[in-house]
């Protein structure tokens, strides 16, 4: 009886991880057995309400996917004079990912802080995990990297468009 409950508890947890991964943009090309392989390289981390997941400007080595709970993204507010508070930017929910740039950038610094809003569980995928995955399962690692490049490329193009628009606005104000 205890074994049955124990196995099912973990099985349900595993199934939830696979489900969240299969809906994520980085892993959606992978088959269920490949997702199972990837899940062995990931870390489940648990956070209490108001706990900082990462802090702005600190070195980050990877990304997080929200398995359960909600996470607030904050930008440091220098005028407030306290490093533990910040200006609210957005709230992320189950399935959302954050910090993906740190997965490939060397000595990458976090551009914002992330704080758990309630009891949260996050899936962490970090540079060492990606490197290990590329060593033992290069095909799977390659497909994740391709998807990651597409996500970052799209972000870059969106940022470039925004900069162009802002430049136009500045020029019109100047004129």
């Amino acid at each position: 009886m205890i074994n049955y409950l124990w196995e099912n508890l973990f099985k349900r947890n595993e199934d939830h991880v696979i489900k969240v991964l299969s809906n994520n943009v980085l892993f959606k090309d992978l088959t269920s057995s490949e997702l199972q392989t990837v899940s062995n390289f990931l870390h489940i981390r648990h956070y209490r309400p108001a706990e900082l997941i990462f802090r702005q400007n600190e070195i980050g080595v990877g990304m997080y996917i929200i398995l359960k709970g909600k996470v607030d993204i904050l930008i440091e507010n220098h005028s407030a004079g306290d490093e533990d508070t910040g200006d609210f930017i957005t709230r992320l929910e189950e399935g959302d990912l954050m910090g993906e740039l740190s997965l490939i950038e060397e000595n990458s610094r976090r551009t914002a802080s992330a704080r758990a809003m309630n009891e949260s569980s996050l899936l962490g995928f970090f540079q060492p995990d990606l490197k290990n995955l590329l060593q033992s399962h290069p095909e799977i690692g390659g497909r994740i990297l391709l998807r990651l490049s597409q996500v970052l490329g799209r972000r870059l193009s969106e940022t470039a468009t925004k900069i162009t628009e802002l430049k136009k606005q500045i020029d019109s104000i100047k004129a």
Partner: protein
Amino acid sequence: MNILIQQQRLKKIERLKLVLFLSIIAVGLLILLKVDNMLLSFLLAFVLKYTLAPLINYSERKGVSKSHATLLVFTLFFSLIGILIYWALPYISVQFKAFHAELPRYIEGTRSLIFDIESRVEEIINTSVEFNLSAQAESLMVSWTRSLFEDLPNFLSKSLTTILLAPFFAYFLLKDSHSISKKLLDLVPNSFFELALSLQYQISEQMGQFIRARLLEAVIVGMIVWAGLSIIGFPYSHLLALFAALTNLIPYIGPIIGAIPAIIIAMINGAGLLAVVGVYAFAQLIDIIFIIPLVVAKIVNLHPITVVVSIIIGAQLLGIVGMLVSIPAASMIKVTAQNVYHHLINFRA
């Protein structure tokens, strides 16, 4: 304000978790240092793990599961080692017996060599002080060689536990290394998790590359010495090559220690001294010109002073084992210090 109180409480919990994690690591280290055979078994297991890990990764890339790959690589490796021992043991044992029989002559020869040098030095500096180095050297050599020949079988039987434990640990370190490190990392508090993961990966990578490079270096130096001594027809080529390969694992001092027995033998026999020096110098030349710059230097970027100081500290703390592990330990400390500085101090600046 509520958030600030919560943050203070969380910081307290994090600190407690950190103390718990560090205590577990400290207890582990204490067990390694205090329990008989444990340190050496684990060191050998890690050497085996890092030597065989690339082959297991290769098998995994070819679609073999990790457990099957570990079993396959382990079986092949130990079969190969078995064949090698079966092939080389008769040669080494013949040379070992011959060397044992000739030993009194070499001890007497070394004593007279030192006596000769001693009297020349006394002539030059014209001193009446008695050094009596030759007698001291003779008694030292007699005690060393007696312990080598008499204690070797005893040492080997005592090392049986280590010899059996090391492959056992290595097998599970290879098969379950991922889940073991994941479980350990689960205990790390959230705020130190990324630092711990990054450190664990960097240290593991560096140790792997370092161990593989040093072993490759030792094998190449040993083979050059063996080939060179065999070509010039020098006695005990197998034994001397094995000794040169093993001592080459100790940086800077090792190659010199490795060459001393052959040079003494050549001096006593009164033949082939130049050729022997040539063989060892050639092996070191190949090591310095090709092997060190290509495979070793880039891996552990330590200043020569740091290397020598580390070897001295290692030798004082743990003897020969300390000399061998001093460089990886020093580089581990360097990587840890660099990472802690970047993650915890530099980002606040």
